């Protein structure tokens, strides 16, 4: 058994203190130990984006992010978005535009879009496309996803954040 390391990080606003192996991936810790199965693991090599979560507001692939590196940081997963029971504009736009089919890429896609709009609240279409290049979807052909992100951006235009 490898040495264990104590880590503390916040997930969706809640503090967690865990003892992890150095090799443990953030994706596995979130999914298997904290029961946050919203994020998905698909390609394992940081290509598909299904495991996208935010670490200190930055979109990362949890499949290749070591849990020890999250020590002292703040992690946001899809489960935290509608914690108050209200969908975010991005989530609602995904439903309105049918921006998913099987839904396996959706949590990662929603988190990537959340990071994108946080950085660029009024993106152009080209900026949305570029912002989603790191997230694969095999079902939709992407157009509904791009439309959803643009619709969410315009629905919040003029708001003071959220």
């Amino acid at each position: 058994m490898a040495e264990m390391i104590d880590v503390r990080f916040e997930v969706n606003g809640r503090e967690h203190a865990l003892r992890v192996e150095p090799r443990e991936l953030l994706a596995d810790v979130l999914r298997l130990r904290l029961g946050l199965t919203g994020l998905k693991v698909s390609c394992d090599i940081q290509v598909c984006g299904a495991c996208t979560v935010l670490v200190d507001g930055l979109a990362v692939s949890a499949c290749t992010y070591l849990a020890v590196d999250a020590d002292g940081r703040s992690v946001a997963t899809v489960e935290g978005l509608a914690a108050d029971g209200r969908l975010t504009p991005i989530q609602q736009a995904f439903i309105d535009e049918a921006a998913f089919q099987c839904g396996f890429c959706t949590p990662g896609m929603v988190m990537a879009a959340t990071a994108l709009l946080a950085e660029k609240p009024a993106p152009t279409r080209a900026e949305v496309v570029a912002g989603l290049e790191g997230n694969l979807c095999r079902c939709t052909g992407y157009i509904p996803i791009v439309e959803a992100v643009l619709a969410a951006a315009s629905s919040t235009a003029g708001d003071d954040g959220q």
Partner: protein
Amino acid sequence: MTRIRTGPPPRSPIGESVPRRDGVAKVTGAARFTSDLSVPGMAWARIVRSPYPHARIVSVDTSAARAVPGVVAVVGAADLPDVNLYYGHALADHPLLADGVVRYAGEAVIGVVADDLATADEAAALVDVEYEPLPVVAGVEAALADDAPAIHERQAEARPHRGFEEEIRRDHPNICSSSTHAWGDVDAAFDGAAVIVEGTYRYPKSYAFAMEPYTAVAHWTDGGLTVWSSCQHPFMVREDLARCFSLPFSAVRMIVPYVGGGYGSKSYTKIEPLTAALALRAGRPVKLALSIDESILTTRGDGAVVTIASAFDADGSIRGRRAEILLDSGAYAENSPLVARKAANRISGPYRIPAVEVHCRSVYTNTAPASSFRGFGAPQGNLAGESQMDEAAERLGLDPLDIRLKNVADRGEPLWPGVRGLDATLRDDLCLAAEALDWWTPPKPGHGRAIGLSASDAGSEPVSTALVRVVADGSVTLTVGSTEIGQGSATVLPQIAAAEMGVPLERIRLLQSDTAAVSFDRSTGASRTTTLVGLAIQRAAADARSQLVEWAGETLAEGGPVEEAPGGVTVGGVDHDWGAVVRAWFGGPFGECIGRGYVRRAGTTAEMPPFWEIGCVGVEVSVDEATGQVRVERLVTVGDVGCAVNPQLVESQDLGAAIMGLGMALTEELVYTADGTLLSGNLVEYRVPRAGDIPAWTSILAERGDGVGVYGAKGGGEGSLNPIAAAIANAIRRATGARLREAPFTPERVWQALQERDRAGG
């Protein structure tokens, strides 16, 4: 979106883009997939795979693995004397763990079960297998050489009820199956031809990349076996499991949670027998969750080499077609015998051809096994057939649209002897696509346009059932055996039940894909669900309504004559909803009316195929001649689906299918070396389309009510994939003069073709 509709609009909520029912669950992360599932006491499995493409297993030493603390079981074929190792619904040639021989690199040899995955990984690395390498054949030509080593030494048993007996013939040991599709006097057709176009076309070995890898959880419990699996056809998997473990079908319970993509790649049985065998030896529930790299090695799409000739009159009338199709089906049959039959059927296209002779052979090679994949033999043949339509038009000085209009079959015409007449007006579809593509306005220099067409004998077997259960408050539980794999059946099927019962949509609860809780459905594939399960629901609703009207007559008739009304009955001018009828008949605030719907090969669904699935697309491409890079700039899809029960979802299918086709046309290929090594077995080297690859899209829905299903519906979902590769090849030709006959049309291949063009021109 443009909707072309003939006939009156169907009743609400049919034809309405109601929001997907799985929406909130999927955007919040609440949707549970098999990948997310845990069962109390569950152990984890890891598979030791063969590094050799063809080898005899000399010895296996598992002692070091067994000694690792936390290991529950280490299982090889030899440890399963009580299990029927060989499964396969067409040909039982596939052992759930290698049985003395491995036939492809990546084949499962040993299963390791441990308390957690890290321990299973650690122990799996300690399993020592000694192999004696055998000669390898990794391509169809090599596999069919006279002196090629036999990949299967013995002929496997053909499953009788699948109807492949005729096709499982072995004039060569590496032929898995042979299908013939022929009519008319082909020699005469070619003898009298003004123009004959000939060529060999290649379609890649492909990977569906369902983003959820193959995952199953098996639990021996309640005197039987329960398996949760990310699969499309739970009832068919149930049968394979029952045979492997000598159980009655009903002792096997298959439950399918949300499925992270299928596209045919989760049709039929995959890892379920293996997972169940490991759980049997472990004495605990076991989860086997493959990685994507392992999933690539589990099932892929058949690659094809198509040698084809088409004969034409001077006016462009097609006289005949000959084709030899070789499918690279990999190490095991899986569903390739059916893919072979469909590839043969579909290569003749939706054209009126007097004479056809097609031979298609599914060939065993030492590569990962191939099986169903969206389009199912159609895209492989369509690249050849539709390329030849354009090649003939060019030779004859005809417009590619005109040569199609000249030859396309009319509505009602069978595409070959003995099948259902064509249930589509393809002439109009072609014109819709051409118009949307500005066909008659020349494109910019460096751009080219093409229109592609296909018609597939789809729908699979018309065997489905449904139950419409009206409970005491008048709400409805709808149960079907069809699986929600992302296509939207969980939304569309309640729409049909709501329309048929006159009950608000939000009062319909749907239960799917639990073989112990819902009634039988054959499969979720071949674009059949809305059409055939829809019919079963319509019949179940009619059965429920007829019982309820009778019950009203028995219990409420003293109020006056009973008349059926939407959502209930009217008795002497007073409305009673269905719940009131149930309560009256049972004499209290309880009870349930069970309506049953059956669909089988009888009545309107007697004739095969149940429907023709149409693919009609237009593309405009640009080609960078310096690099050979092709970009699809514009895409037109014509969804000829009879009736779009939920138009937004139909369009989703059309776009998704077309973009999947675009991937195989431009970038996707499982590349094997001649010695059986897979070079592109991961998502970096197997490149699927990304957001930046997507063209501008025009969607047209053609709703002419001409299908056999509810409200004239027929299937969609595969159609727009089938003609994409050929359309892109034809558009590249028109943009550059270069003819591509091997997909994917990578920059290197396009550049080579451009050099060839220049050499030929110079």
